[in-house]
């Protein structure tokens, strides 16, 4: 069972529709108790970092998320919230990963970075199994995380930035797998399989 975090900052419908399409079992909740019983967590995110963090705090979710031991997948803003800090605001985030999420430089690229771009893998992880080493995914964001030790795939638009990250049980994708056609659905399926292997 996957728990999708509902904190009024995510596009719950899109991710729910995608999970339904791959036949995944999931619940949508904004409370710690039901989420803590899940095999894995998806932290979606649409919107701005400051409001999203306030919303997580209000629901008492920040500590739960930053100490979760099963697979957790952050999508778009949900991935950015895993870092120490975001320039958006600026905002102190969950701090699962070191580093600062930065804003794109408007002189080298349009903001937001919106559309399909190539995600190129630099190392292999189960989450990306069955997906081409260079594959298109759909992005819509104005802030990005720099490529560092946790990056497993990168994308270039003005700068090279982290497209997929993995650190222990934490995963993040800057793009929207729920909006990226079959490649995105494959990634979500891989995440479901990963969660099942952690079944409580």
């Amino acid at each position, binding site marked *: 069972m996957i728990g999708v975090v509902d904190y009024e900052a995510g596009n719950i*419908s*899109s991710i729910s529709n*995608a999970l339904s399409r791959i036949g995944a079992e999931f619940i949508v909740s904004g409370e710690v108790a039901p989420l803590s019983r899940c095999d894995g967590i998806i932290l979606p995110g649409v*919107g701005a970092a400051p409001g999203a963090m306030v919303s997580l705090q209000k629901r008492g979710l920040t500590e739960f998320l930053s100490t979760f031991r099963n697979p957790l997948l952050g999508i778009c803003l949900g991935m950015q919230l895993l870092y120490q800090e975001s320039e958006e605001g600026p905002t102190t985030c969950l701090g699962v990963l070191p580093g600062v999420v930065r804003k794109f430089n408007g002189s080298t690229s349009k903001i937001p970075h*919106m*559309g*399909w771009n190539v995600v190129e893998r630099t190392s292999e992880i189960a989450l990306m199994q069955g997906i081409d080493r260079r594959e298109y995914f759909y992005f819509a964001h*104005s802030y990005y995380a720099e490529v560092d030790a946790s990056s497993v795939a990168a994308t270039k638009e003005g700068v090279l930035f982290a497209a997929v990250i993995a650190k222990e049980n934490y995963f993040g994708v800057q793009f929207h797998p729920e909006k990226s056609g079959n490649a995105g659905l494959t990634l979500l399926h891989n995440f479901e399989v990963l969660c099942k292997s952690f079944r409580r």
Partner: protein
Amino acid sequence: MLTRRIIPCLDVLNGRVVKGKKFQNLVDVGDPVELAARYSDEGADELVLLDISASLEERRPFFEIVRQVAKCIAIPLTVGGGIRTLEDILDLLRCGADKVSLNTVLAHDPTLLARGAARVGSQALVGAIDVLRINGSWSVHIKSGTQYTRLDALEWAKTLVKHGAGELLITSIDMDGMKVGYDIELLDRLASTVNVPLIASGGAGTKQHILEALNTGKADAVLAASIFHFHEIPIKELKHYLHAQGIPIRL
């Protein structure tokens, strides 16, 4: 490198997809859910779904159709028509839209963009501008093109971006459904005026028109309806053509 996007547009009236010329003489095209699923499967990069009578009829948007369309596609969905409040925006996103396209409401209150951006982010907000050429200038029209405003399209584009539009959907009413090509001059001027992605709309009749909008017009995405609805240019064929012409495209 970011690829250019090909976006079929579904204009919906009374639950059916329709298509006209210069926003008039509408003919029935088909069922929105069936068409959306077909375009998603055929390689469309995104879909735009417009409720073309909501603003005129002053009613709320077509939530149920959005819900049904969102369920059957795995690509981004932009929804427009009849949006008047932040609550409308949130409700459409809850129904499965990824972005909302705002048009008529902004002429009365462009600050809705700022309030929307604070809540859902600029990337989910498309500023739609319907333009008619009048005496050599680009005049903004609202209410499905029926109402003239004193706004100049270039100035208006700047205003919408300033308030928080993350993308602009530029429709030339003169060219709509006419298959004579996009308003390239307008697109080119806009591209050097604002720094958000531009979607060109109105006038696509051939593959060359689309190439022109992307090259000379510098559009980031092209929206088209007739050529896809009436099976004149299959999406795959169009994308292979653009790719062969050196345009970055998702195949």
